[in-house]
């Protein structure tokens, strides 16, 4: 199935919702409202013809004032096609329904996204720190997170090419 056809299937499923589909580098990217994020993933997994039964990863993206993006990559071993399902949660209310009921493997990915970006996954069975030490404070992959070493000593090299 081509990326365009995959996008059309999701558009038909979420008729009338704020949904965007695009194809980037041969992979379909579907942006859905956060209320329908778990529905879209369930649809992708259970619909015949799509069969996205392989959960690859789930992670976050700090999109500054736009909010926090959450993106998951699914793969279909039957058809060999991919899809990226993404959503955006606002900065002041970073909540999202958990996917761990759909894909059990999403459990640890959501814990990591929670500790790194502060996105709370409602309904997660065990939302505790995964990689960081217990006493760690803050969400280190947020752009606003201050690296104390960098405050004391600025980055010694160039940040951008040509600087």
């Amino acid at each position, binding site marked *: 199935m081509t990326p365009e056809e995959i996008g059309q299937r999701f558009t038909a499923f979420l008729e009338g919702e704020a949904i965007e589909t695009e194809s980037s580098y041969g992979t379909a990217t579907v942006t859905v409202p956060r209320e329908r994020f778990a529905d879209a993933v369930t649809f992708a997994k259970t619909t015949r013809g799509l069969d996205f039964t392989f959960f690859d990863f789930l992670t976050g993206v700090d999109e500054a004032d736009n909010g926090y993006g959450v993106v998951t990559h699914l793969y279909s071993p039957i058809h060999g096609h991919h899809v990226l399902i993404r959503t955006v949660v606002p900065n002041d209310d970073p909540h999202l329904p958990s996917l761990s009921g759909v894909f059990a493997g999403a459990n640890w990915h959501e814990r990591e996204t929670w500790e790194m970006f502060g996105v709370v996954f409602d309904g997660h069975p065990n939302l505790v720190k995964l*990689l*960081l030490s217990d006493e*760690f404070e803050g969400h*280190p992959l947020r752009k606003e*997170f201050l*690296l104390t*070493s960098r405050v004391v000593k600025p*980055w010694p090299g160039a940040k951008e090419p040509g600087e």
Partner: protein
Amino acid sequence: MGLSDQVEVPQPIKFVLNWGRKYSLWVFNFGLACCAIEFIATSMSQHDFIRLGVIPFAHGPRQADLMVVSGTLTDKMAPAVKRLYEQMPDPKYVISFGSCANCGGPYWDSYSVTKGVDQIIPVDVYVPGCPPRPEALLQGIIKLQSQIQDESLKQRYAAKPAPELAAEAR
């Protein structure tokens, strides 16, 4: 430690004891990252640190004399390193192998990396490099052995009271 930290052993006996100790270093490899590969290369036939009396792959920290911390130490891992160090019997030595174990190395600004293993346990020899070549570890081992040959257990332990073991390490 018994008597050896109470009285200075006579010089000929001290020489023999130190000589025996320096050529029988059971080593406990705390491999945390790519430097551990260099450590393993040093233990294999090409570089072969057994010819220096360093015996690799001690069965556990309780059988080891030397701990080589090779790789990136994170804050999450730090309590485990300290605990295993405390389980080693005295006299014990530590080689910090590679830039990450020395000072954090390329992760100097990271939120999760401990800036040097010497922040949690005492280090005898630092081996610089990213990662250091096996020859550098051999040089570090020879350096440690010359330190062991010259050391006095009385001076090493008399001034220092026995470390308070963490409750779970007993």
